[in-house]
């Protein structure tokens, strides 16, 4: 079909037209590294046959992606969540029966966590509609495809800070700064977990003057991130918790950041890298950060998915 059988190319791609087709599939699926992707794209640009195949694969993928997805019914979710509940209770009983000397306290505590969590998430799933499903699918796609972007973002804390500040600014302009309204971390955490599979510590610090309003999902550098929103007097504080990618030690707070007219504090604790942003005064923001860090140290349960 094309003359390249007689004229070997130097781009390292297969000479066989059928193998070349596999490369186009791999390109569409994001399975090629940058060099190979560039070479395949050049071949596509030069060959109308390959371009047509590329267009067909893209069209097909879109058609397949456009099919309705099965919905997770409340009833079904409750059944699955009940597995963990029932088994958790069994294990706790078995554990207590087998080792009467073993401290029963943690077992009971585990029971409590077993009960709370699935119910909380069942309640949140109950409010799924197709828009939220679609949004979560889009977010999952971002999660899957954003790795390279994410690495770049990691190396550019400045742009990350600006993205955090912009997210905060948008939230102030939006009808509501949160997607899930609740002062109860047992509601906020499963909601975030259900959307993006990540749930940062979410202590309610109302008694310290920082009330937990709820949470939302921020997309920073193509990656969905959990964001918590606290209110302090008339100011809102957005706390973005980026899951940590590498083994950085806990990092002390750096408090001289600002972006887009907002003050930022950045620190790292446990599994998350935190960015707090607010239009509050610097002392208030610093106080919030100190109390938040103290709260997750004092109450690790708030930091675990409980």
């Amino acid at each position, binding site marked *: 079909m094309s003359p390249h059988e007689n004229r070997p190319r130097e781009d390292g791609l297969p000479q066989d037209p059928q193998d070349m087709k596999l490369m186009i599939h791999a390109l569409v699926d994001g399975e090629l590294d940058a060099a190979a992707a560039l070479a395949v794209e050049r071949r596509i640009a030069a060959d109308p046959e390959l371009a047509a*195949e590329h267009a067909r694969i893209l069209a097909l993928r879109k058609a397949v992606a456009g099919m309705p997805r099965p919905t997770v019914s409340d009833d*079904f979710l409750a059944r699955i969540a009940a597995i963990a509940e029932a088994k958790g209770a069994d294990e706790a009983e078995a554990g207590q029966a087998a080792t009467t000397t073993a401290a029963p306290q943690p077992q009971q505590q585990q029971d409590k966590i077993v009960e709370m969590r699935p119910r909380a998430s069942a309640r949140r799933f109950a409010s799924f509609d197709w828009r939220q499903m679609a949004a979560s699918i889009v977010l999952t796609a971002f999660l899957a495809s954003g790795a390279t972007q994410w690495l770049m973002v990691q190396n550019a804390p400045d742009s990350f800070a600006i993205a955090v500040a912009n997210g905060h600014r948008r939230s102030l302009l939006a009808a509501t700064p949160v997607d899930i309204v609740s002062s109860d971390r047992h509601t906020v955490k499963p909601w975030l977990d259900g959307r993006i599979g990540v749930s940062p510590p979410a202590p309610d610090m109302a008694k310290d003057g920082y009330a937990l309003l709820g949470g939302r999902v921020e997309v920073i550098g193509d990656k969905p991130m959990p964001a918590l929103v606290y209110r302090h007097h008339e100011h809102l504080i957005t706390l973005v918790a980026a899951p940590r990618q590498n083994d950085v030690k806990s990092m002390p707070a750096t408090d001289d950041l600002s972006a887009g007219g907002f003050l930022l504090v950045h620190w790292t604790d446990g599994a998350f890298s935190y960015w707090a942003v607010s239009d509050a005064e610097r002392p208030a923001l610093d106080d919030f950060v100190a109390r938040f860090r103290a709260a997750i140290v004092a109450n690790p349960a708030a930091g675990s998915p409980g």
Partner: protein
Amino acid sequence: MLAARFAEVVLPHLGDALSLARWLTGNAADAEDVVQEACLKAHAGIAGFAGGNPRAWLLTIVRNASYTWMARNRPRSVVAVGGLADLDDVSPPPDNDADSPEAALIAKANSAAVEAAIARLPDAFRETLVLRDINGLSYREIAAMLGVPQGTVMSRLARARSLLMTDIGGRHHEPA
């Protein structure tokens, strides 16, 4: 904390688990039974989940549960997936440029037509296509799950897509 881990690893991916089971068993009601069984196994084995992609981990269990379920409930319909030499052939799809439809025709296909076309695919092709295009797993994850080389995954995927294109593109309407 196994229960919490279960809620973190398994619950967010129930939609994907249902999709896969629905395509492997062929109907939505059976899919719920299969996913429930898979979740029991997932719960029992959650301590063995060593990180990585939780979706791929759960879907591997769902796939196994689907075939176990089908062997028990529909022994006649079970095809030895992976045992068919012609499907494991790593040769690329046959050249069908001559009658490949235009991309625009494919784009116009409605959901019902796409769904019917996927249902008509041979099992091994359908499985690979669903894992890639509906569940969004990578070639490497699919190869590990199916226990076949990545080349086989690529070949099956290309052939599955090629069959779908001719089917929904409207040039051929051959019965299954």
